[in-house]
């Protein structure tokens, strides 16, 4: 790789780092080598200085440890009260995180970064509190000793013999904006200790002889200095990258560490991390899943190790394969790994015999990849099982062994009687076959037991000389040992095969589960479908109670979706709310709010958080590493689906908005045009009436007056139609259905139009025996008025109009036929559309009338249609459903 040219990816990362820092608060760490060097003092001094320049500074938590000088510095600083937490009959005073967040100062002082919070606090560790404060945009000053950093704990333990329990992840050093090293020479520190300025008198002597030995302090000082130097080096790198200053670029290394359930893996992981940090390389943590079953404590250990690797910044990969070495090398080649780190714990010779070969194999097939073999110093711990023991340990229980014994006995018995017929070699093969069957059905242990027993019985009962363990013939000796060997190996292999098959099936099931989920989700029609599918699939796969809470407009819904199987009370909901705000998982199995009953994780998409999922598995222990990965994948899918649905809905709404806008515009145009004409007429006629000539002329006067009345009527009808249309569109049209006489309705409509129909002949045909029909009187009257209005407008004056009623096959038909030009054939349906006017037709209508009519008739469950009648004009036909009206009686009065 060209060492001179900056890597664009690295450049981008550096710039992004810079950008991200804009919104976060800035962290300044006061680093020391040991207690008593004066970190808190330095922090307070710095804070006071900053305060004089006008910055809003508050004290979150400061431990003075009774040191008078430190206490003095606290005056004039605003100290936020602590939060009392009850724990085991005492009351602990913890930092009040929410008070700080509410107060929103510019800078807050938080002492002792590595402190562990009392149970019941939001986070387990104080550094998590600090992270949340930084996220909220508040700057933080904090103090910490070098021994607390995770990557250093091993070294510290080696040097001082002290096991450090309260640790802080290295990421805090890396993302800190400033580090101030509070340095003191070891001699000076010891003098301070003697003067009682560090601890109270009783503890001084103990401290001086243990932790505060000169050698220790010197080593710790070096560690602190080195840590600071590394950090400065990195800052320099970043700076040089952003400013594109050519410098000594690190090459693009990639590391891979092989992880096992063993505790020793922790050390390996931390080691790899330091390497990666120093080399500025990315790193992978790999677990190779062979057919070997893990017991619960191993599963826990593995999950813990992988979680730690992930937390430290590794990409976690679970590979599967028969052969660990091959799987590692294959993956390394695939991912362009440059260095592999594997561990070699010091164990018994027997173990070394088995595992040493793994290291050798990896080294041999590594090719151009460097291999680091890191030795451990731990003895095998009680929870650990060695490889050798594993050979015998199986999941079979005593019943399987009993069956095995029984089968062997049975077979031997049968063979005893068959000896004469088939000979002892054949018997041996029969017994061998039995062993294989036992391997398949009952497991490895019983198979080995069967192998041993049957071999011995074969020897004792069937090989000459019979009933002794001696063997005469050499070939029989060979046969015997070979038998045993074959039985043992075949048994083990068969059992292994069975494990693999089971493993493959589980894998297939898992893949199937993912496929099913994706498939079902893709078919979901709406949000409810998606959630239903997600909930049911996840409940089954993870054997858990699930709750999904969606978010709307940036806020989490107050309740979980009704189909959720997990019930949330107020406390649980607040955990979910936290998860939503902070975009990180919380609850059980995590470090944040671990007292919750369920595990909560956010549904994250690139744009936003669409909700929160809560899980309570039915089995109590935490998820295995594979389950965690599967869960992450599931959650990712569901989140994407929900986002897709939300986007669809948004798109639909946008389309509808556009459509209604179009309609709105058309309506406005149409109305303004339609209204202008009658308004113009009224205004014109009225002003005409003012002029003397017209006023004094009775004929002209009555003409104009008539015009005004007609125009007013036209405007009225327009308003009626608009009102009807708006009611139809919004679905607020309410029908007052009652039994009506069709003739009556027609009569009323005709009477209303009396004047305009005056010059035409109107024929109404109605059978008086027609039964009553259910309809809304006023609305059907409107329909008839519109139809009559159209007939008057679009047919030549004086042409007749016929109205007929007919009852046929359960429906009442009312037809209105004119003798005009009719409707163009291709427009017979279109005329019922809103705003449609037949081209070249005389003006006078809005184009709304027929659409309103159809809407009204449809609301009755009927039909309105048009056709042309040869020899006449157009015929409009209203069909209304008819049924039997109730009977009437004569009055009793």
């Amino acid at each position, binding site marked *: 790789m060209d060492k001179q040219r900056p890597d664009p990816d690295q450049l981008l990362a550096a710039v992004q780092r810079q950008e991200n820092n804009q919104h976060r608060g800035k962290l300044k760490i006061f680093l020391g080598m040991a207690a008593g060097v004066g970190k808190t003092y330095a922090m307070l001094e710095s804070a006071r200085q900053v305060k004089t320049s006008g910055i809003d500074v508050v004290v979150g938590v400061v431990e003075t440890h009774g040191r008078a000088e430190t206490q003095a510095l606290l005056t004039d600083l605003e100290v936020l009260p602590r939060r009392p937490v009850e724990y085991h009959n005492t009351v602990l005073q913890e930092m009040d995180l929410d008070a700080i967040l509410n107060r929103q100062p510019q800078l807050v002082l938080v002492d002792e970064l590595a402190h562990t919070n009392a149970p019941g606090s939001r986070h387990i560790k104080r550094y998590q509190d600090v992270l949340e404060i930084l996220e909220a945009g508040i700057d933080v000053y904090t103090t910490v000793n070098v021994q607390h950093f995770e990557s250093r704990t091993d070294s510290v333990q080696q040097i001082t013999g002290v096991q450090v329990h309260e640790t802080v992840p290295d990421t805090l050093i890396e993302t800190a904006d400033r580090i101030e090293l509070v340095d003191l020479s070891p001699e000076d520190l010891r003098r301070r200790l003697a003067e009682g300025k560090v601890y109270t008198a009783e503890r001084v002597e103990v401290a001086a002889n243990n932790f505060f030995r000169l050698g220790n302090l010197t080593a710790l000082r070096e560690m602190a200095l080195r840590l600071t130097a590394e950090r400065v080096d990195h800052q320099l790198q970043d700076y040089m990258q952003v400013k594109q200053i050519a410098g000594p670029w690190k090459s693009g290394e990639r590391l891979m560490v092989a992880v096992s359930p063993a505790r020793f893996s922790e050390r390996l992981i931390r080691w790899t991390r330091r390497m990666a940090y120093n080399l500025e390389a990315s790193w992978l943590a790999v677990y190779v899943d062979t057919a070997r079953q893990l017991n619960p404590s191993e599963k826990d250990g593995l999950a813990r190790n992988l979680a730690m690797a992930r937390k430290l910044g590794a990409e976690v990969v679970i590979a599967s394969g028969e052969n660990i070495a091959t799987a590692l090398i294959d993956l390394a080649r695939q991912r362009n790994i440059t260095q592999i780190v594997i561990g070699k714990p010091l164990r018994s010779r027997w173990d070394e015999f088995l595992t040493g070969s793994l290291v050798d194999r990896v080294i041999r097939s590594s090719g151009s990849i460097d291999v680091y073999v890191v030795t451990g110093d731990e003895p095998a711990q009680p929870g650990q099982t060695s490889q050798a023991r594993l050979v015998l340990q199986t999941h079979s229980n005593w019943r399987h062994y009993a069956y095995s014994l029984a089968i062997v006995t049975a077979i031997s018995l049968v063979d005893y009687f068959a000896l004469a017929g088939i000979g002892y070699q054949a018997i041996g093969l029969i017994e061998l076959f039995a062993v294989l069957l036992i391997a398949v059905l009952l497991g490895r242990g019983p198979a080995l037991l069967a192998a041993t027993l049957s071999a011995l019985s074969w020897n004792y009962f069937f090989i000459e000389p019979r009933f002794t363990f001696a063997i005469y013939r050499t070939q029989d000796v060979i046969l015997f040992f070979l038998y045993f060997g074959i039985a043992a190996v075949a048994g083990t292999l068969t059992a292994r095969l069975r494990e693999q098959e089971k493993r493959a099936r589980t894998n297939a099931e898992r893949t199937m589960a993912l496929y099913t989920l994706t498939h079902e989700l893709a078919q979901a029609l709406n949000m409810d479908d998606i959630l239903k599918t997600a909930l049911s699939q996840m409940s089954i796969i993870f054997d858990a109670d699930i709750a999904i809470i969606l978010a709307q407009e940036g806020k989490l819904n107050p309740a979980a979706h009704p189909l959720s199987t997990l019930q949330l009370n107020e406390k649980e909901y607040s955990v979910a709310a936290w998860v939503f705000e902070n975009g990180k998982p919380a609850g059980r199995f995590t470090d944040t709010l671990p007292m919750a009953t369920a595990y909560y994780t956010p549904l994250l998409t690139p744009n936003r958080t669409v909700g929160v999922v809560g899980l309570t598995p039915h089995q109590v222990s935490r998820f295995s590493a594979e389950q965690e990965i599967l869960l992450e994948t599931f959650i990712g899918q569901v989140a994407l689906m929900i986002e897709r649905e939300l986007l669809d809905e948004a798109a639909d709404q946008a389309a509808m908005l556009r459509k209604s806008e179009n309609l709105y515009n058309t309506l406005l145009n149409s109305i303004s045009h339609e209204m202008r004409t009658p308004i113009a007429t009224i205004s014109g006629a009225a002003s005409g009436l003012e002029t003397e000539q017209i006023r004094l002329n009775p004929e002209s006067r009555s003409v104009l007056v008539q015009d005004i009345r007609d125009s007013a009527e036209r405007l*009225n009808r327009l308003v009626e139609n608009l009102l009807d249309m708006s009611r139809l569109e919004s679905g607020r049209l309410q029908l007052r259905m009652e039994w009506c006489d069709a*003739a*009556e309705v027609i009569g009323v409509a005709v009477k209303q139009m009396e004047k305009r129909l005056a010059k035409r002949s109107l024929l109404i045909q109605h059978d008086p025996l027609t039964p009553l029909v259910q309809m809304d009187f*006023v609305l059907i009257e409107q329909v008839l008025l519109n139809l009559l209005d159209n007939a008057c407008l679009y047919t030549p004056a004086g042409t007749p109009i016929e109205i007929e009623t007919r009852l046929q096959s359960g429906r009442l038909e009312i037809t209105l036929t004119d003798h005009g030009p009719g409707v163009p054939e291709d427009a017979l349906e279109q005329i019922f559309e809103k705003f449609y006017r037949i081209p070249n037709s005389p003006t006078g209508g809005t184009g709304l009338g027929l659409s309103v009519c159809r809407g009204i008739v449809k609301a009755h469950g009927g039909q309105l249609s048009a056709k042309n009648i040869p020899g006449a004009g157009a015929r409009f036909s209203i069909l209304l459903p008819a049924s039997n009206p109730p009977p009437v009686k004569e*009055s*009793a*009065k």
Partner: protein
Amino acid sequence: MTSGPHILVVDDELQIRRFLRISLEANGYVVDEAGTGQDAIVKSALQRPDLIILDLGLPDMDGLEMLKRLREWSQIPVIILSVRDSDRDKVGLLDAGADDYLTKPFSTEELLARMRTAMRHARPEEKPAVVSFGEIQVDLARRSVTRRGEMVKLTPTEYALLRLLIQHAGKVLTHRQILHEVWGKEYVQETHYLRVYFAQLRQKLEEDPTRPMFILTEPGVGYRLHI
């Protein structure tokens, strides 16, 4: 100067009050105005008009409320002005004691005709024993109905219906009022009775039952005998 009947016009719209005043005064009426329900009640009490024209869309008071209060102490005829859609309100007011109604927009002739009818019915004068309209003659004393001189056979219910219409000739009768009078309180919901019986009446008495001249339907409200 003789002054005609005294009319109180109640409407919150100035233009409506103005054109009503002009039309009515041109026909010899004396007109007073009120813009709110409260004002109207006070003026009705003080001035005792012969007729009140009441608009339904008053700002301060529900029309029904006002009418009920009025009817507590007065039988002054009331004509309601309404818009097309307030059917239920119209019917409610008619049942509560209003005499007639007009739907905006209305013509002045219509208004004057209904005013005259309402005021006529308010006067306790002798009702004639014989009434005729078109080719129909009804002798209320002898309970006989003839058409072009020939007897028309009406069922007792049909006759009761006809008599009721004649008693309120020119005025609108709501479905409820008719059913209550002719059939009784339990039947006030059975409007289909009216459809059937009116169809029968028209068949027997009207020249063209499908285009009745006298027995008119008031859509959504009731019926009216127009003579």
